C-alpha cells in the first residue's frame, strides 16, 4: 500500500468499521479496510473498540427481551384490531345506551301495531364491510323530559338492509324492526354458511311517534341528537340476552370437556354464567363488571389443522363471531390464544379496556 493510500485510509470512519464488523461491507471495501488495519495499529485499536461497543449495545438490547412464548399456528391468526379507531365511537355509543338503559329485550314477544309514521333518520357508517344504521323510534315507555336531547346509539346492518328497513318502516306491520333484523341476519348467516342462533329483538313501539325527517342513508354518523320521546332501538344491549336465551347454561365440567382445558375468566369478577353455543363448540363465560356491564368471553378449542386457510381469508373478523356476527354491533371483539384455547372478549367497553381485561384472563378456579 502506498503512503498516499495509507493516508486516505487513516480515517476509517465509524460507519465503515461498523459495517465491516456487521459483515455488511462490500467485498472491495472490506479488502481495503483489512489491508489498512493490518498496517495501522490505531485503526486496529479502534476496530476492537467498536467491536466491544457493538457487543455491549447488543447485550443491552438483550436485557429488554420479551419472554419466549410459543407462537400460535400461522393459519389460526386473526385480525382482531382492524379499524379500532373507527369502531371506538361505536363502542362508546353502545356504552351510552347501556348506561341509559333504554330499550330492552323481550324474548319472542311481538308488539303489534307499529306506527305508521315515517321512521327517523337512517345513517350508515363506513365501518369495515358493515354499515351502521341509526334506528330511532318514538317510545312512550321512556319519556324524556321535554326539550331534552339525547345521544343515540347505532346498530350495524348491511347498507342494503338499512335501505330496506327504511322503506319498510312506514308500513303498518307487526314488529317490523325485529323481524326485519332477523331476516337480515338469517340471510347473512346463511350466506356465510353458519346459522347458530338468531336474534330476536322486541321493541316498544310508539303509540304516537314523533315524525322525523328522513335523511339519506349514507350519512356517516355515529350519533345524533334527537328530540325527546325518541328512543334507540337497542339491539346492542339485547345482545347478551339474546345469547343467553339460546345458549344453554352449563357447568364447568362440560365447559372443560368442550375446551379440553379449564374455561377462562377475568380474575376478580363474578362469573354470571357459563354457557355453550348451540353447536356445542364455543363456551361463553359471562362476567359482570357491574350491573349494567357484562363482559363476554367466547372460548373455543383450537387445533392445528382444524381450519382450512381459506376460511381465514374470507373476512377480517374471526370465525367465532359466526355465532354472534350479527351482534357485535358497537362492541369490540378482541381475541387471544391461551394454551389451546382461543378467547374472544366482547362487551360494552372500549377496545382498550377490553384489551386490558383480555390480557388478564386466566383459567377459572374451582
Amino acid at each position: 500500500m502506498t503512503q498516499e493510500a495509507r493516508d486516505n485510509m487513516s480515517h476509517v470512519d465509524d460507519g465503515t468499521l461498523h459495517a465491516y464488523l456487521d459483515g455488511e461491507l462490500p467485498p472491495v471495501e472490506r479488502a481495503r479496510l483489512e489491508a489498512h488495519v493490518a498496517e495501522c495499529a490505531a485503526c486496529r485499536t479502534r476496530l476492537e473498540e467498536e467491536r466491544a461497543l457493538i457487543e455491549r449495545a447488543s447485550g443491552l438490547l438483550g436485557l429488554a427481551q420479551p419472554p419466549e412464548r410459543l407462537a400460535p399456528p400461522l393459519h389460526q391468526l386473526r385480525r382482531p384490531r382492524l379499524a379500532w379507531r373507527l369502531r371506538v365511537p361505536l363502542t362508546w355509543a353502545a356504552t351510552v345506551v347501556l348506561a341509559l338503559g333504554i330499550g330492552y329485550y323481550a324474548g319472542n314477544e311481538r308488539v303489534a301495531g307499529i306506527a305508521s309514521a315515517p321512521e327517523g333518520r337512517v345513517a350508515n357508517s363506513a365501518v369495515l364491510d358493515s354499515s351502521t344504521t341509526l334506528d330511532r323510534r318514538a317510545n312512550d315507555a321512556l319519556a324524556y323530559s321535554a326539550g331534552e336531547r339525547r345521544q343515540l346509539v347505532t346498530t350495524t346492518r348491511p347498507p342494503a338492509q338499512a335501505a330496506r328497513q327504511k322503506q319498510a318502516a312506514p308500513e303498518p306491520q307487526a314488529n317490523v324492526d325485529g323481524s326485519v333484523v332477523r331476516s337480515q341476519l338469517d340471510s347473512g348467516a346463511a350466506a356465510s354458511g353458519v346459522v347458530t342462533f338468531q336474534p330476536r329483538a322486541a321493541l316498544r313501539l310508539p303509540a304516537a311517534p314523533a315524525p322525523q325527517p328522513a335523511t339519506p342513508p349514507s350519512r356517516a354518523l355515529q350519533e345524533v341528537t334527537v328530540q325527546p320521546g325518541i328512543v334507540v332501538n337497542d339491539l346492542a344491549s339485547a345482545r347478551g340476552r339474546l345469547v343467553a336465551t339460546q345458549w344453554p347454561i352449563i357447568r364447568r365440567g362440560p365447559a372443560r370437556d368442550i375446551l379440553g382445558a379449564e374455561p377462562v375468566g377475568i380474575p376478580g369478577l363474578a362469573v354470571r354464567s357459563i354457557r355453550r353455543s348451540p353447536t356445542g363448540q364455543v363456551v361463553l363465560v359471562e362476567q359482570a363488571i357491574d350491573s349494567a356491564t357484562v363482559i363476554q368471553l367466547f372460548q373455543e378449542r383450537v387445533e392445528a389443522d382444524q381450519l382450512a386457510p381459506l376460511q381465514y381469508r374470507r373476512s377480517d373478523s374471526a370465525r367465532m363471531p359466526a355465532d354472534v356476527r350479527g351482534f357485535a354491533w358497537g362492541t369490540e371483539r378482541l381475541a387471544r390464544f391461551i394454551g389451546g384455547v382461543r378467547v374472544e372478549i366482547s362487551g360494552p367497553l372500549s377496545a382498550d379496556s377490553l384489551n386490558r381485561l383480555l390480557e388478564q384472563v386466566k383459567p377459572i378456579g374451582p
Partner: protein
Amino acid sequence: MPEDLAEIYRSTYRSLVRFLYRKVWDAERAEDLAQEAFARALVHKPENARGWLFIVAANMARDEARKAARERRHLTLLKSEPEALHTEPEDQIDAETRRERVRTALDLLTPRDREALLLWDAGMSYDEIAGQTGLARGAIGTTLSRARRRLVEAYDAGSEGQHVARG
C-alpha cells in the same frame, strides 16, 4: 397459505415480537401485534413479506403509542389486578430495573437511529434496513454506530444517575 410466508413466520415471528416489544414494552401486546401483522400478511400476500411485516408492525406500534394515554385512563377499571407479582426475587427486580434503563436509553435515541438499531437487532440486513428507513445503504453503518454509542452512553448515564427523566 403461501409456503414462503409460513417459512417467514417460523423464522421471523420471534424477531418481530422482539422488535415490537421494544416499541410497546408489553410482551403480550407485542405478540398480539406481531400476530396481527402476520394475519394481515395472509390476506394481503405482499411480495416482500418480511419487509412488509416490519413496516406494518412499526405502524401498528406507533398507533399503539398514541393510544397509550387513552389506555391509561381505563386502567382504573382494573383495580382488581393482582399486585402479588411484585414479590419477586432480587435478581428479578434487577432484571426489571435494567430493562427499564434500556428502555429509557432507547427512548433517548433519535427515532431514525432507534429504528435502524431495532431493525438490525431483528435480523435485518443493511439493504433491508435501508429499504425500511429510507436511509441510503451507505449510511446504515454510520447510523448504527451512532445508535449503539448513544445507547450505551445513555444506559451508563442512567445507571449512574438513577433519576434520569423518562422520555
